[in-house]
């Protein structure tokens, strides 16, 4: 926890100090066609434990993040020297070739895995790295891995590091790998301002409706908290170009069509995932809504998301339940 807090504190410092002239990160590893076998080869960090970002590596956070068995996450964005991200309205920042997104997961105080998303000339590539027992480096696990660990709530789980293809399952949009997290609407106004001031973003985008800060969701409109959660946790598959496009259930922030959002919508390929229920969302009735039922399940073939969780997100469930209950 302390390590990660330190990393977040560094955020300000990293932004204040303009891009260093000499690249500390290994641009070769990030952009050539190979799969680096260890995280250290990229040179994204100056320490072995991957907490001190090298020049050009900027920590960031998402207002409402993807939930992964309660794992603590540290996120970093790498831009090669002289490169600049471009704002794209309230959507995904446009990151140039050579950029990378780095996300480290921690459970029980230990580094579990680091996922690296590299923008190569041929497109984005997603690679998973598993930390060693000594916590000194992380090794590429193309085929993924399983680790017995505990959630912050104390539940014993078999935690799954996704394989390379599973990375793409969530990150694919129209068949191409793309980042999910850094959408301007899900980043803080201050961070965007600082990032632009540091010369790493062309302009500060105007955001009409920002995804609320998850830990301050009680202060936000319930619909925003719930829709922000669904956007961050479901919409990468449940969108017209995502892995769940054939379901017709689309949960992104900007969707307004009630049937696409699941209101009174019958399932198409849910199988036993339906739990004997008729509709994805029955306004006012979370217990009769397939969406809630699948979020509240731990059973393979039923639970949603299909990958990336082995326990229940009670906070997320609470928000979605309250939202459905209040729908008319």
């Amino acid at each position, binding site marked *: 926890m302390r390590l990660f807090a330190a990393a977040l504190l560094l955020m300000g410092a990293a932004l204040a100090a303009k891009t260093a002239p000499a690249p500390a990160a290994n641009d070769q590893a990030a952009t050539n066609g190979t799969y680096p076998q260890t995280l250290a080869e990229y040179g994204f960090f100056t320490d072995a434990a991957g907490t001190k970002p090298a020049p050009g590596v900027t920590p960031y956070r998402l207002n409402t993040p993807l939930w992964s068995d309660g794992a603590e996450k540290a996120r970093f964005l790498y831009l090669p020297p002289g490169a600049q991200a471009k704002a794209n309205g309230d959507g995904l920042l446009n990151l140039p070739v050579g950029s990378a997104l780095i996300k480290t997961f921690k459970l029980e105080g230990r580094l579990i895995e680091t996922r690296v998303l590299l923008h190569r000339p041929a497109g984005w590539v997603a690679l998973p790295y598993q930390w060693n027992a000594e916590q000194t480096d992380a090794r590429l696990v*193309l*085929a*993924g*891995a*399983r680790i017995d660990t505990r959630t912050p709530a104390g539940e014993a789980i*078999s935690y*799954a590091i996704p*394989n*390379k*293809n*599973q990375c*793409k*399952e969530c990150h*694919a949009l129209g*068949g191409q790998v793309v980042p999910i997290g850094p959408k301007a609407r899900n980043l803080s106004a201050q961070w965007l301002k600082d990032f632009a001031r540091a010369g790493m973003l062309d302009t500060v985008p105007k955001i009409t409706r920002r995804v609320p800060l998850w830990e301050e969701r009680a202060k936000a409109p319930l619909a925003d908290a719930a829709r922000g959660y669904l956007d961050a946790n479901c919409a990468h598959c449940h969108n*017209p170009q995502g*892995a769940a*496009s*054939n379901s*017709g259930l689309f949960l992104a922030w900007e969707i307004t069509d009630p*049937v*696409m959002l699941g209101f*009174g*919508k*019958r*399932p*198409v*390929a*849910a*199988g*036993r*995932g*339906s*739990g*004997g*229920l*008729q*509709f994805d969302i029955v306004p006012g009735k979370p217990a009769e809504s*397939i969406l809630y039922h699948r979020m509240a399940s731990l*059973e*393979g*073939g039923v639970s949603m998301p*299909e*990958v990336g969780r*082995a326990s229940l997100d009670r906070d997320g469930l609470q928000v979605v339940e309250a939202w459905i209950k209040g729908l008319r």
Partner: protein
Amino acid sequence: MRMPALFIAAATALALTAPAHAKTIDVAAGDGAQARLQEALIVAEPGDVVQLGAGRFVLTDGLSLDVNGVTVRGAGMQSTVLDFTGQQGAGEGLLVTSDDVTLRDFAVENTKGDGIKSKGADNIVYYRVRVTWTGGPKETNGAYGIYPVSSTGVLVDGCEVSGASDAGIYVGQSKAITVRYNFVEQNVAGIEIENSRDAFVNDNFVTRNTGGILVFDLPNLPVMGGGNVIITRNIVFGNDTPNFAPKGNIVATVPRGTGIMVMANDSVSIAKNHLDANPTAHIMVVSYPMPFKDARYIPTPRNVLILSNEFGLGGYDPAFDGGAELLAGLESRSLPNVLWDGLGQPPRASDGSNSYALSLNLPSQGSGLGQARPKVLLLPKDVPPPPVPVSQASKAPPYPGAPHELEARITR
């Protein structure tokens, strides 16, 4: 150096048909099968064959393939078994998301969700693949056995599927499809073609399912307007397994004992099939029965042709409300071969005495069976086709079926 254009063209053609470094990656059953097999599926390159050894691969997670032009080949559907009985994660056993893939000669057992799913995977071949839930029909089995979706070019040939709690072979939101020579038993639906076009379903053996072959179109989906389907030379026999689909799924509404069922499709021919011992109805032609909000959707079936089928005994134990009362009123003690809900235009038929249908004579789309005013009628030989939208009038639909290249990929 300038290369002669002809040489370049030849080299390019060669590269397309047989990548220079195409190789075989052998994967044996045994310890660490999960990681070894998944890694092989990741590092494979176009043209490669991932060769699975004989034996039982004990797997804990779903597998996936995302490389174009790869063949995954086992030692036979009884010899190479991917065993997902202990599966902990993922929505299916094997997921394919790349084009020009061939899956052949292996089995998938007891997945928690679907058996094999291919999504956005154009020109895929499933050949002599078996998907089985070994405990028989159960609501807790996965939904689909073989599940190609959102794809153009699908060939499912010589496969066996049993135990699926939705459909054994399900092709959804796809086009240019052939489903042939398969054996599907004890699924809720044997074969289902849904929101798809240009499908040829021939020479399958379809038995002991709840419903044999379903051709459906559903509202509120990205791809709709299913049709141009030929169902021919199938043996659809004794589909009498009680419906075990979880409620909420459209197939949960299919009455036990249905042979071939067409719902809300355009241009479906049902010809030269052999239908026997289907206790509710050999052939059912109906509209989508639920309320819906979707202006693009047409809930009625259009241009359905029923021709030269052979009918054995059927309709002797209909599994829908009021079925028993209907039966009691008939001297033959069995319903006619064709059941039509009476909405839209009747199907065409020219099978003489086989062309009698029971019309439920429902007053409107969405009416319940309680509003049925059943009557027996002789199906017409000719029905004026409904008006074709101007945008489509000039286009002749393609002949249904998968591209020939897919058939050429498998040698018999």
